[in-house]
C-alpha cells in the first residue's frame, strides 16, 4: 500500500495543472443559458485540440488512451481549477464509450470524432414518465420498417436535448419478450420533425432537462448499437460509465465546496458554534471517505480489471454528503442565504442528487443484491 504518486503520475498531474493554468477560459457567462452552452462548446473544442477530450478513449479513436489513474487525476484537476464542464459531457462519458465498446467500425468512424470536438452534442433518452427506477419497463416502441425503424413514445429528464444532434435511445423492439430482453439501443437523430421537445422547468427555476416526444421518428438500421434485443446490456454499460466517472470528480467538488463553507463559517464568526463544528467535522469525514473509497476502487479496478458495483456506494455517499453540505451552508447564512445566490442554487440543485443517475434506494438495492448477495424481492 502506497498512496504516493509515481513520478509518471506526478508528471501527468503537473502537465494537466500547468495546461489548465495557461488555458483556463475564465468564469462561465451568467444568465443566458445558450451563451453559457456555446462557451462550454468552445471550451471543449480547446480541450480537444490539446488532446484532453475523451482522455480515457483509445488513441485509435482520437482519445488519449490514459490509464485509470491518469483519468482520475484529470477528473480531479478539472473541478479543482474550477474549469467549466465540456459541452458534450454525455457524449464523452456515455455515448462515446458505448460506441467504442459495442459499435461497429462504421459507427466508430461516423460518430466518435464529432463527439470529441463537440460539433455534435449527445443526449440520453432512457427514463420515461412511467419508467424511472424500473427502467426496463419502458414503453417507447420501435417498429421495423423498410430497412429502418419508426419510434413512438416519450422520454423525460433528457439533459441537453435542445442542443443535441444525437440521442442515446432505449426503445422496445419486441413487446412479447421478457422486459429486459425486448429492448434495443438506438442513436436517434434529433433533427427531424417527428421529434418534439418541451423544456422541463425544475425547482431551481432553470430548465436543464427536457421531455422528448417521438411520433414515428425514423432511425436507420445502421444506428442500432450492439444488435437488436441487446439494448439492456448496452444501456447498463452506459450507466456503469456514468457512475464510475462520477467518483473522483465528485469528491473534489465536495472538497472545494467544503473549503468554501469553512471560510464562510469563519467569516460569519460561527467557528465556535458546537453544532456547526460537529456538522463540519462529519462532512470532512464524509468527503475524505468518498475520496479514499474512490482510490481503493481504482486500485481494485487496476488489479482485477473490473469496476465492480462499488460505484453505487460512491453515488449514495456523494448525494448524502452534498445535501448535508448545502443544508449546513443555508443554516450558516440564515434566511438571507435563501436569496437567489450560488448557495441557494446549490442547496436546491442538491435535492436531485439522490434521484438522478439512479436513486439512492436503487443504489441500496444494487449493494444489497450484488455486493451482499441478499435475495431479490421481485
Amino acid at each position, binding site marked *: *500500500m502506497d498512496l504516493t*504518486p509515481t513520478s509518471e503520475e506526478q508528471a501527468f498531474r503537473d502537465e494537466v495543472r500547468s495546461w489548465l493554468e495557461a488555458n483556463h477560459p475564465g468564469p462561465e457567462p451568467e444568465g443566458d443559458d445558450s451563451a453559457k452552452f456555446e462557451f462550454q462548446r468552445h471550451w471543449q473544442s480547446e480541450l480537444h485540440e490539446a488532446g484532453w477530450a475523451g482522455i480515457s478513449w483509445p488513441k485509435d479513436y482520437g482519445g488519449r488512451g490514459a490509464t485509470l489513474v491518469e483519468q482520475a487525476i484529470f477528473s480531479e484537476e478539472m473541478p479543482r481549477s474550477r474549469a467549466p464542464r465540456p459541452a458534450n459531457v454525455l457524449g464523452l462519458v456515455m455515448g462515446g464509450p458505448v460506441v467504442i465498446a459495442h459499435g461497429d467500425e462504421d459507427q466508430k468512424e461516423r460518430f466518435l470524432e464529432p463527439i470529441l470536438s463537440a460539433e455534435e452534442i449527445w443526449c440520453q433518452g432512457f427514463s420515461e414518465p412511467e419508467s424511472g427506477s424500473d427502467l426496463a419497463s419502458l414503453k417507447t416502441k420501435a417498429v421495423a420498417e423498410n430497412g429502418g425503424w419508426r419510434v413512438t413514445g416519450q422520454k423525460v429528464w433528457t439533459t441537453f436535448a435542445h442542443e443535441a444532434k444525437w440521442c442515446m435511445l432505449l426503445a422496445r423492439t419486441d413487446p412479447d419478450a421478457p422486459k429486459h430482453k425486448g429492448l434495443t439501443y438506438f442513436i436517434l437523430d434529433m433533427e427531424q420533425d417527428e421529434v418534439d421537445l418541451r423544456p422541463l422547468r425544475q425547482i431551481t427555476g432553470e430548465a436543464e432537462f427536457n421531455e422528448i416526444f417521438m411520433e414515428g421518428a425514423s432511425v436507420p438500421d445502421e444506428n442500432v448499437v450492439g444488435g437488436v434485443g441487446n439494448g439492456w446490456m448496452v444501456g447498463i454499460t452506459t450507466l456503469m460509465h456514468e457512475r464510475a466517472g462520477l467518483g473522483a470528480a465528485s469528491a473534489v467538488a465536495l472538497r472545494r465546496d467544503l473549503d468554501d463553507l469553512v471560510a464562510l463559517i469563519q467569516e460569519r464568526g460561527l467557528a465556535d458554534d458546537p453544532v456547526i*463544528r460537529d456538522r463540519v467535522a462529519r462532512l470532512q469525514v464524509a468527503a475524505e471517505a468518498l475520496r479514499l473509497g474512490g482510490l481503493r476502487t481504482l*486500485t481494485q479496478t487496476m488489479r482485477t480489471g473490473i469496476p465492480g458495483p462499488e460505484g453505487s456506494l460512491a453515488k*449514495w*455517499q456523494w448525494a448524502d454528503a452534498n445535501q448535508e453540505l448545502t443544508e449546513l451552508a443555508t443554516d450558516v447564512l440564515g434566511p438571507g442565504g435563501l436569496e437567489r445566490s450560488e448557495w441557494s442554487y446549490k442547496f436546491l440543485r442538491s435535492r436531485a442528487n439522490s434521484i438522478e443517475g439512479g436513486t439512492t434506494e436503487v443504489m441500496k438495492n444494487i449493494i444489497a443484491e450484488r455486493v451482499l*448477495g441478499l*435475495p431479490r*424481492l421481485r
Partner: protein
Amino acid sequence: MDFGFNDEQQEIQRTARDFLSARFTPEKVRELAESHTYDDSLWREICELGWPGIAIDEEHGGQGLGMIELVILCEQLGYACAPTPFLSNAAAGLMIDAVGGDEQRERRLAGIASGEARGAAAFTPEESPIVPDAEGAAVLALPEADGVRLVEAAGAEIEPLELIDATRAYARVSANGGDSMPGDPPAGVDRVAVAVAAELTGVAQRAMEMAVEYAKEREQFGRPIGAYQAVSHRCAKMLLDTEEARSLTYYAGWVADAERDSLPMASAMAKARASDAAWEVTASALQVLGGIGFTWEHDLQFLLKRARATGQLWGTSGQYRERIADLVGLAAEEPVAG
C-alpha cells in the same frame, strides 16, 4: 498510487484470519468472556507469531514493520472479537516508541515486543483513568495534562472493573510517581487511535456478516427477510459504514508511516468514523436479528458490547470530531488586540 495491500501484507492478513478463526472460535470467545479470563497459552502462541512486536523496531526485538501491518492484525482481532491483551500492549508500545526517550525505549520495548513484560495505556489525562489490561502488565503509560508518564504497574493501585464488555479486562488505575516521557504525546496517541479504529472496523465487518447471513436464512411472511427493503437497505448501510471506516483507517495507517504531517487529521477521522460505524453496525445487526439477537445465547452481544466500550474508551467520536473541526480550519480565533 496503490491503495491495496502488497503480497506480504496480504499474507499477514490471511495468516491472522486463519489463526484467529481456528483458535478464537465462537465457543472459545464465549467461554473466555463468561469467565472474565484470557487464555495464557493462546497469548503465548500470539507472542510466538511475533505479533506484539510487529510495529516495533528490530533493535528492540520487534519485526520492524509498520502501522499498516499493525492495522491488519488489529482488524482481524476485532473481527474475531478475541479476548487478548494485544491492543493495550500495542498501545503502550506505540506510546513509548513515539513519546519515550532512548533509555525508556531501550528498557521497555523489548518486553512489549516479546509480550513477556506487557504494557498498557490510558488515553485521557484523568485522576484515576480506566486502563484496559492494566492487571498483568509490567508498565503503564498514563497521559497527563502536559505529557505522558510511565509507571511501574507493580507500584500502582489497580482495581478491576467489570464493564459491559467482558471480552477485555478493564481496571481503574491510581498511581503516583513514575518517569515522564520527553516526546510529544499526540505522536503516540494518534497512532493508538489508528490501531483502535482498525479493531473497530473488524468488529463492524463481523457484525455485518452475521446480520447478512441471518437475513438470507430467516424467513417471515414466506420469504427471507433480506428480500424486504426495510432489512436489505439496513444491511446496505452497514456496508457503507464499514467501508468508510476501513478506507479511513487504512489511510491513517499509511499516513502514520509515510506522511506524518497528515496524521493528526487522518487518525481523528479514522477513530471518529470507526467508533460510530462499529456501534451503528452492531446495533443495526441486533435489529436485523430481532429477538434472537437480544438473547445471551447469541454471539452478537460480544461484538455489540466490545464496539461500545472500545468506541468510548480511547476518545469518543464526538471528541475526535471536535479535533477535526479545529484541524479543518475552525480553530477559535485569537481576539485581535486594540
